[in-house]
């Protein structure tokens, strides 16, 4: 499930990602990320319930993360980064943020 909700103030939005983030859902993920980037100044990302993801999701998250940093958006995370996410980040070589900013701890690939 991919869901984006904006709080009452309209400045902060939470992107709730769960279930399978694979190529079948890549378009929906892109749309949610674009919306989050365009609608709020602060993005809260929640990956807690992600059960699988593939390279398409990693590319989208990486591109969004990069854009948001460039745009000066505040990005935070709620919940944990599931093991499966860390493992795919690690195995795909996406460890380390090329923008040098991994405040949300998504790109560590660390085993919990």
């Amino acid at each position, binding site marked *: 499930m991919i869901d984006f909700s904006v709080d009452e103030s309209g400045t902060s939005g939470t992107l709730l990602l769960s279930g399978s983030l694979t*190529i079948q859902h*890549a*378009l929906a*993920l*892109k749309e949610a*990320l*674009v919306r989050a*980037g365009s609608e709020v100044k602060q993005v809260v990302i929640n990956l807690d319930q992600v059960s699988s993801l*593939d*390279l*398409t999701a*990693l*590319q*989208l998250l*990486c*591109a*969004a993360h*990069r*854009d948001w940093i460039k745009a000066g958006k505040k990005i935070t995370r709620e919940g944990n980064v599931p093991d499966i996410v860390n493992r*795919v980040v690690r*195995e*795909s*070589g*996406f460890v*380390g943020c*090329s*923008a*040098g900013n991994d405040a949300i701890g998504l790109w560590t690939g660390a085993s919990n």
Partner: protein
Amino acid sequence: MAVEIDTSAFTEEAYELLSELEDSLLELEERPTDIELISRVFRAMHTIKGSGAMFGFDEVAKFTHEVETVFDMARSGSLPVTKALIDLTLAARDQIRSILDASRGGPPANQDNANRIIAGLRALAPQKGGAAAVESKAAAPKAETDGPHVFRVRFEPRPEIFSSGTNPLLLLNELRDMGQCRVVALTNALPSLEDLDPERCYTQWEIFLTTTQGENAIRDVFIFVEDDCTLNVRLLDRDEAQEDAEPKKLGEILLERGDINEEALGKALTPLGDRLVNAGVVSADKVRAALTEQRVVQEQKQQQSKAAEVDAVVRVPSTKLDKLVNLVGELVTVQARLNQISGRLNNQHLQLVSEEIERLTGELRDNTMSIRMLAIGSTFNKFKRLVRDLSTELGKQIELTTAGADTELDKTVIDQLNDPLVHIIRNSIDHGIEKPDVRALTGKPLVGQIHLSAVHSGTSVLIQVKDDGKGLDPQLLRRKAVEKGLLSPDAVLSDPEAFMLIFGAGFSTAEKITNVSGRGVGMDVVRKSIESLRGTIDVQSQLGIGTTITLKLPLTLAIIEGLLVGVNHDYFVLPLAAVEECVELSPQDIANSHGRRIVNVRGEIVPFIRVRERFAMEGERPVIEQIVIANVDGRRVGFGVDTVVGQHQTVIKNLGDSFQYSDEFSGATILGDGTVALLLDLARMVRYVELQETKETGG
């Protein structure tokens, strides 16, 4: 013309490998599922087989092949490592050793034994698949003997690769199965989110794979996507195969890969990665990939150098080494003379040169001595097998633990230490450690412990054999000694003195003689061997608790720290390690002792031997004599001399044949002015004086 092949290199190596093989097998017995150990055993046999065939040792090669074939099944997991397999492989190891011994003039190896071992091993092998399957497996591991290499794989999939149903991450995982893998994703082609087509692949990879497999195997992983990607596979560590090549610097790697040009590199130096990225010359991903490459290659190089350390050994016959030590000894002596002469002449130029030579000689001496120093661990390891076999033979359960295996000792000392330690350990197993049922009755753990340890103590090494067996009974020892006529019935012995009786010639308390011990020969030999090494023995024991035998040995036999003393116009050296203090003996002291050779040291009465009297030397005693008090076999004994000159670095020279009956001297040294000083064997002096006194008093 027939070509003579020097086979000694092979036999030397094979003996070492057999020793390693034995250690590994004993370890494997404790950890039978340890794949690394199984591989180590296999490698040792594989090398013996290969080198054996190369040097014409066909019998070794043929026999080892049979054993290796079965052990390879253990390596592949089709045969479990059991005690039976270990027993047979150990027996095979002994058989290989017998074949080697036979080639060096020893008794011929027993072929029946070889056949029995092979039959036993074959019986262990699973029947399914038959001999052909076994053969093919034995040949298989060849590729692995080449050692691992680092490959850089640059994988650039076409953006449309997802449409063919390919998941590039699965390919990366396949590579991961081939060895140690570091993956760096290059994401610089990733567009902004807005422009990103989520069904296209924008990522490329650099993968650093450390593997024993070749380039073709790597390419095979990508065989189904070869039209959908650009693939570049490069062996990284081949360029750096030369021993002295430094791992490439980050800048060099980026340059070589064409990621930056020299101008950019020149502009941005430290910290290079950050500055290059900031300058916009190269992406952070590429720097990350280059850093990964640098790290992987360095790690691989470290691994290789670790392995090379084992191989980077020059074998030199020990006789050459002995000659070198002798020459260095001569040099030290000549240098001392030079020092003395330059001091006397008071010539500044000469003094400068002399000091420089002194420094160099000192370094040369220390280096030469260090070459002869070997870790005692290899000797310790031999005893694991001894304990295993003997305890099985005697129906006992014994665990041998060791400590201080890396303690270094002079090679000569180590060589001569083996037999005494064998005797002591055999004795512990046979007489010390009780059988499990006896131990159970006394509330001890069923498994007996023998702890073998080595530790440096000043210029000596203490080697301890400690067991938790039944301990020594001083009363029984006294009684046996009296029965055998080794001790007079009225002799008074302290417990430690009674314990030392076990080292007497012909002494044994064993009720029955076994194959292992009980003939009263071994422990006598131990004492003689240790004394010939200028060492001492100490025994501590508690009845029912256990025994600890401590051997105190000099670090080296070639150069020792000595105390130089003078008697008349002659000089003697006492081993400094034994010396405890020096006191003066005045005419008043002599008068107080009423003719007995004793000195009162702070209330303690210490007997002493006058060196002048002992060796019937001419000349008058000085008014005040010097008594050097030394620890001899655990007792304080004084040695009366005229003067104490001081500490002296003593290069020990062997005495010629004319001194063969004068065993109160254990060697000689040449002093700076060319004078010869004799090295006193304090323990023997004390023993001879005691013997003489016993005869004189008719005791």
